[in-house]
């Protein structure tokens, strides 16, 4: 099986590669269009800022490539947000695979004085659907680091509650998105990566 991680200017691509190595899966990191198209599965990772990342993808025509892919594609964190229609982060038009909008967490300062933005740490995932969550129990903990979130919508396949419930995973056709970092979510994250590999 050929597994490709899309290389672009968003951090922590290595972490995903190493996580795959830990579960015994080899992957290559590349921005080569033909290699990405030929892959059996594609991972679109990312930590960073939406408009800069979108610009980078557009400059290399990776934006058009990603939406045209037909094999299973997994967006992680910023990768998932970029697969949505629009992000409030610097008012960015994104890839439009998922119609859900990406918004900034707005803690209500009186009620939720202790909620910080970005959300950093372990939170639960609930309302789990689709094979990507096989063997994952409701309320499992995953590791999140983000200041923006995708609202709940028809493509939501997992929810997390921070300030309000939001989409911690999305799915449409061959596209999957995870807001949390499976590569840093201990055994739960490893199982989710294995599930994606087995799709």
């Amino acid at each position, binding site marked *: 099986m050929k597994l490709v991680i899309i290389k672009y200017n968003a*951090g*922590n691509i*290595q*972490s995903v590669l*190493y*996580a795959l*190595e*830990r579960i015994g899966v080899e992957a290559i990191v590349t921005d080569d269009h033909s290699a990405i198209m030929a892959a059996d599965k594609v991972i679109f990772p990312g*930590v*960073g*800022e939406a408009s800069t990342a979108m610009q980078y993808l557009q400059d290399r025509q990776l934006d058009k490539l990603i939406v045209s892919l037909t094999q299973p594609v997994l967006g992680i964190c910023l990768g998932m947000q970029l697969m949505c229609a629009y992000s409030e982060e610097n008012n960015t038009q994104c890839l439009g695979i998922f119609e859900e909008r990406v918004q900034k967490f707005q803690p209500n300062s009186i009620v939720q004085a*202790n*909620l*910080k*933005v*970005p*959300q*950093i*740490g*372990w*939170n*639960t995932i609930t309302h789990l659907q689709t094979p990507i969550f096989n063997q994952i129990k409701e309320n499992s*903990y995953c*590791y*999140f*680091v*983000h*200041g923006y979130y995708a609202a709940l919508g028809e493509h939501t396949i997992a929810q997390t*509650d*921070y300030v309000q419930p939001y989409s911690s995973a999305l799915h449409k056709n061959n596209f999957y998105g995870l807001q949390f*970092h499976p*590569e*840093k*979510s*201990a*055994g739960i*994250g*490893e199982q989710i990566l294995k599930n994606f590999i087995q799709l």
Partner: protein
Amino acid sequence: MLTKRIIPCLDIRDGRTVKGVNFENIRDAGDPVELGAFYAAQGADELVFLDITATIEKRKTLSELVNRISHHINIPFTVGGGISSVDDVSVLLQNGADKISVNTSAYKNPQLIKDLAKEFGSQCIVLAIDTKLEADGNWYVYLNGGRVKTDSKCIDWAKQAVDLGAGEILLTSMNHDGTKQGFALDITATLVEILPVPIIASGGGGTMDHFVDVFTTAKADAALAASIFHFKEIAIPDLKAYLNEKGIIVRI
């Protein structure tokens, strides 16, 4: 619910884990990668590796160590110690670090925080502050591993750093560090209240109740400790079970 985090800290010197008391009297506590993997398996929520090696080879050895860590550890980890440029951080992140912590270099050149936040995002910039309560009743910032006093108050520097883009504060009370007499609840609570970013409390954790206090009284987002974990005085699963019993949300 977002959980409170338990973070073992591994001080590294020449590739080994070490631990001192009040920043001095350093003892050996084992291989950092093995120890880190052990903590991850035990349910640690995150790890911090602070390199206190002071050699020319440092940069290379640190990036090699980070690479080894990231091949063996499936939870987030922060790396700190002598980081003073965007290039330093770039190398560490490429080798798999999730966050980096800066201390003295950021104090001497606050622009560094801004540059790092712009390049890598605030979420991966942890500002470490070593602070000490002086006779005048104020908490002051110390540099160089606690050896150099500054005239800056902890609160002022923390605020400035967050404005510049620090995404988290790792606050170590030098008065409490290594004493096992409990965390510095007052200064921790103050920072939690005034800053919009998570605060990691460090220094003084000696009993499970100290962790309860720092999460409930001071409302810290995370608590960091070293020797009590390294020398197996408190096991992480026991600590988390205890916190859970006390109604504190933790990942079990």
